[in-house]
């Protein structure tokens, strides 16, 4: 015998169509549908609708997520921090250009600049070690954690190797160097697929006050350098100033965070 109609209500029929019923309830509904042609037609139509909807909206997990959505989840180190320091950097860069970036060489020689010798040392270390094919670095990027821990310990500050993958440069590795005035320097080396190499030179023992962002150009290499909290930083590479600037900004944003 069929159950009284009222005991099989629409809610139960929906749950049957949507497959949300336990087997006992399912059997109960099925038994009822055999007796109630109207309910059976309803259920058949609803199920067909649900199937058609499902096939109209397949889930495409492989579809690329728009960049604007991905950007919402990007780590703040990237976009936001760079954007946060950009106005400051622009001001610093303006100062650097006005003060005559190309004149840093003589500037460093004749004045007690806080970054005295920094660009020259960084540029020399860059020239020497980027020319090496087999021994460009002391510790390779495969041991990045060890490399950073070691250099941090020797320089007495927590360093990090900035991530420059977005600019196409990957970490090759790094080394420890002697620096002027009996101090130490660390060098991180990066390389892109064209074989161009950048070095980030970090020197301790900077006596002077924090300095602005300065630029130097020498023998086809561009250097951006600054002093912060007793450490001198220089990013040196074979790119032109305009190409180096966004990378320098990135390094600055990551290191000065």
């Amino acid at each position, binding site marked *: 015998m069929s159950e009284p109609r009222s005991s099989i209500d629409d809610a139960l029929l929906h749950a049957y169509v949507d497959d949300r019923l336990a087997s006992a309830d399912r059997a109960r509904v099925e038994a009822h549908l055999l007796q109630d042609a109207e309910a059976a037609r309803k259920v058949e139509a609803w199920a067909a609708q649900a199937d058609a909807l*499902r096939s109209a909206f397949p889930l495409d997990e492989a579809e690329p997520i728009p960049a604007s959505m991905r950007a919402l989840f990007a780590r703040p180190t990237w976009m936001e921090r760079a954007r946060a320091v950009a106005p400051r950097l622009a001001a610093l860069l303006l100062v650097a250009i006005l003060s005559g970036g190309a004149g840093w060489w003589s500037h460093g020689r004749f004045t007690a600049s806080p970054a005295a010798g920094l660009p020259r040392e960084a540029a020399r270390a860059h020239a020497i070690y980027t020319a090496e094919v087999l021994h460009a670095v002391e510790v390779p990027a495969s041991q990045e954690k060890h490399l950073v821990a070691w250099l941090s310990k020797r320089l007495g500050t927590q360093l990090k190797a900035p991530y420059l993958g977005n600019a196409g440069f990957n970490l090759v590795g790094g080394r420890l160097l002697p620096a002027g005035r009996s101090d130490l320097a660390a060098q991180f080396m990066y390389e892109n697929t064209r074989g161009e190499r950048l070095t980030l030179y970090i020197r301790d023992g900077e006596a002077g006050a924090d300095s602005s962002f300065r630029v130097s150009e020498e023998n086809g290499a561009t250097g951006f350098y600054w002093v912060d909290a007793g450490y001198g930083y220089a990013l040196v590479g074979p790119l032109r100033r305009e190409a180096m600037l966004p990378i320098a900004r990135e390094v600055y944003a990551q290191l000065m965070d």
Partner: protein
Amino acid sequence: MLPFRRPAPHAIEAEIPRLRRHARGLLRDPVAADDLVQDCLAKALAAWQQRRDDGALRPWLFAILHNTWRNRLRREAIRPDGLALDEEHPGPAVSGGQWERLELQDLQAAMDMLAPEQRSLLLLIGVEGLSYEEAARAQGVPLGTVMSRLTRARERLRILMAGESGADPNRPRLRRVK
């Protein structure tokens, strides 16, 4: 300071494909749909810290998407230049490869004639597989409302589909797609 490391993806990120699918079902125009999802994601991230961990992530996100969509509907109802939902501007003829089959075009036409909340509910339950309770939470209405709304939506769709085909209203025109 630590060496830069790629962070683990945010839990919300895994839900993006579903949110986009649902938004396309609501809006049809994929560009407008992505715009809606963008809004929804920004709100979800802003509310992430305040989120009480008393429910599944998915219904929570769908509730935000639903609210964002409702607010837009309200705004567009006021502003005459809000054309995104205008019948005369249905967006691309084939949206994201959907609806290409004939019976799906019929379904689309019928879906467009449902009340927005009904259309949303059919998608939440039929496509996204939310439970009735979760759908109620997403739509911000009691469970009873969801059940009666579901009946109205399915019955209206049944009549629309049958009427369009000119066939016996009791014979569903849709074939089961297996």
